[in-house]
């Protein structure tokens, strides 16, 4: 079933706040082998001008991937999850995520199209603090493989 192009431009209600924990940043940094002290030691992060440990650049995907279920599992849009392939990913940072952030995601569908039997879905997630300070904008493009 082709994706409904009338969903382009749709914005979803903000997600519940995600509390960024110091140990989660350390765990994520360790999992990707990122050993810079600013990811692990609050003093090293403060020396760079941050209030607490700094998340690696792709850390926000933990928050946005969970938030994107709002779109991917929207029954009205009708994405077949078993055919979903992650095509592109992009981050534009206002500042890095740091421990102590409480992050809210606002999802927008930027593009929906069907080409060569495959569906394409581009989402934009604006990640900000609960106080409304923008932190990072995150784009993901998914391919929904057609039935061959």
């Amino acid at each position, binding site marked *: 079933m082709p994706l409904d192009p009338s969903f382009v431009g749709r914005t979803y209600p903000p997600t519940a706040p995600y509390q960024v924990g110091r140990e989660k940043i350390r765990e994520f940094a360790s*999992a*990707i082998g990122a050993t810079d002290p600013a990811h692990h030691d609050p003093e090293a992060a403060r020396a760079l001008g941050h209030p607490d440990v*700094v998340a*690696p650049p*792709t850390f926000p995907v*933990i928050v946005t*991937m969970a938030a994107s279920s709002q779109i991917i599992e929207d029954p009205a849009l009708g994405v077949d999850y078993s055919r979903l392939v992650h*095509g*592109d990913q*992009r981050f534009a940072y206002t500042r890095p995520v740091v421990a102590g952030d409480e992050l809210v995601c606002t999802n927008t569908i930027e593009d929906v199209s069907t080409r060569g039997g495959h569906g394409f879905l581009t989402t934009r997630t604006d990640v900000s603090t609960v106080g409304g300070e923008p932190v990072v904008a995150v784009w993901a493009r998914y391919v929904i493989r057609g039935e061959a």
Partner: protein
Amino acid sequence: MELPAQTFQVTRADLVRYAGASGDFNPIHWSDRVATKVGLPGVIAHGMFTMALVGRAVTEWAGSPDAVVEYGVRFTRPVVVPDDDQGTEIEVTARVREVTEDGLTRLEVTATCLGEKVLSQARATIRTAR
């Protein structure tokens, strides 16, 4: 200008650790049975794990873990990770495309596994003046 190449070893254990840390438990990243059933040659790395390793290379070149202003990739080829102690390797290189007057450096990044590009349109912008 070319930046020095960086190589990252990827084993099954790394994928399990990344799954736990990221919350992405898709079985194609840990089960050969599921991966082969959906037509893959075997367990593949999370695209976001590859992107995270390339991100490490970018912050390394930048010289600071908080210097990335923009970072994007397209996933073009899966990174197959065999079930042995060596796993596989991802090699990351980059070329400086532009240095702007306001202290930003734009990089064109190449990531290969077994000589094949696994990402395309991989670009990062880093802040070089503090």
